[in-house]
């Protein structure tokens, strides 16, 4: 197989439509986001796209108060690393979660976020 089953563009197109997609190794079953060529675990190249449920729990979080150029109007905003129920993790922007409620283990649910005509990975309350 030489064509990727999904690429970054289609990953974000799917995300924009509210669908989170990972890839599963057809050999060892490892899950990954974003798409890549070889499986780190078994060195094979036999990926299948796999829909992800979008629910998971926070692994770590921070509230950004000094932003890069062009994002100053968005501060403060929270970034979270989320371990999805399927076992694979993803980083995104926390949405509609009070900062003081953020903690490791908090259940969250994926939701797409449109900012500056770009699709972002967001996580809101589960």
């Amino acid at each position, binding site marked *: 197989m030489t064509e990727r089953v999904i690429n970054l563009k289609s990953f974000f197109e799917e995300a924009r439509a509210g669908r989170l997609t990972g890839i599963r190794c057809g050999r060892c079953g490892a899950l990954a986001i974003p798409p890549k060529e070889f499986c780190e675990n078994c060195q094979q190249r036999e990926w299948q796209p796999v829909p992800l449920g979008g629910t998971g729990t926070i692994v770590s979080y921070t509230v*950004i108060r000094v932003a890069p150029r062009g994002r*100053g109007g*968005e501060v403060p905003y929270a*970034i979270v690393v989320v371990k999805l129920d399927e076992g694979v993790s*993803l980083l995104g922007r926390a949405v509609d979660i009070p900062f003081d409620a953020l903690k*490791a283990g908090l259940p969250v649910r994926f939701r797409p976020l449109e900012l500056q005509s770009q699709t972002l*990975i967001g996580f809101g309350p589960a």
Partner: protein
Amino acid sequence: MRRVAVIGVGVTKFGKHDRTSAELFAQAAADAIIDAGIAPSAVQALYFGNVTGGETERQLHMAPLAATLLGLPTIPTTRFENACATSHVAFRHAVMEIASGASDVILVGGAERVLNVPTESATEFFAYCSDASLEQPAGLTFPGVFALIARAHMDKYGTTEEQMAHVAVKNHRHGTLNPKAQFQKEISLETVLKSAYVADPLKLFDCCPFTDGGAAIVLAAEEVARRHRRPIWILGTHAATDTMFVHEKRDLARVTATERAAQGAYRQAGKTPAEVDVVELHDCFTIAEIVATEGLGFFEPGTGGLAAEKGWTSLGGKLPVNPSGGLKAKGHPIGATGAAQIAEIVTQLRGEAGPRQVDGASTGLTHTLGGNTATVLVSLFGRD
């Protein structure tokens, strides 16, 4: 493979400069060549590091420019970029070129200039060193990356914001002893703890500054180095990489690339962590120093914060870490940092570090980390 030594070092004052990156490097390089006591024409190649020149100075192709401004316009040059680990990567490749027998004398180093652009622009350019598909659009910054690590370390081990503040206080105290440091002023624990949050739990004084500066090293093969007054030998140099994606890190409370780079360097050098006398490590944020002291094998996982709190890593402590002031106080011109750390360890092992000298230091270690903990270099140095 041939043995390789550092025979010359040169570092500009760190801080704000009106000179370009290429000029800053050329100045440091000339100092390093004079320190080495060799003719400029003895230099056979330049391995040069710079990260943001395209963004901050509209200047790419900076390696031949730096060689031209140095007055060596015909030597072969290469530009390296691996985020904040840039010039340590350049160093490792230069060591291999000499060890292989291809060259005898190589000039290595780097320069960075970012204080000529607004802070929000510098923050943006540095963020280019994270992934542009998932991480930059989310608004992740470098303080943000290390804040995620800090939070994970606090949750897993009980590390406190106060312990992190001790790292800042210690490195600022060391910086007062380094005339080249950007900050030469002591700060109190309270100053750190009361400073504004940049990315919770990291506050302004947990973060290293933006810095302009250049640093250079002259490397030589054993035959050349033996004629030098005090060669400092490279005992081991190892590179390790980890996934670029923060979400793919297996444990955010660890930097596994540091652990792997350290193991490789110790193995190559035939040394153990207990044999290291002085360390310059990558304290871009206070938590980064705590995690690095664990990953380099100096303290058990989870006890790096305690080590900072107890003063074990201070000058006069059991293992002085960042006697130069570290990135935190000396400053962090990202393309120059790896070379500047090596210059400090060479100065320490020569016994020429003045008021910040670690008495009797004979084995030193440098550790440089790039980007989202994706690139890590560890090198070990010894004297005759």
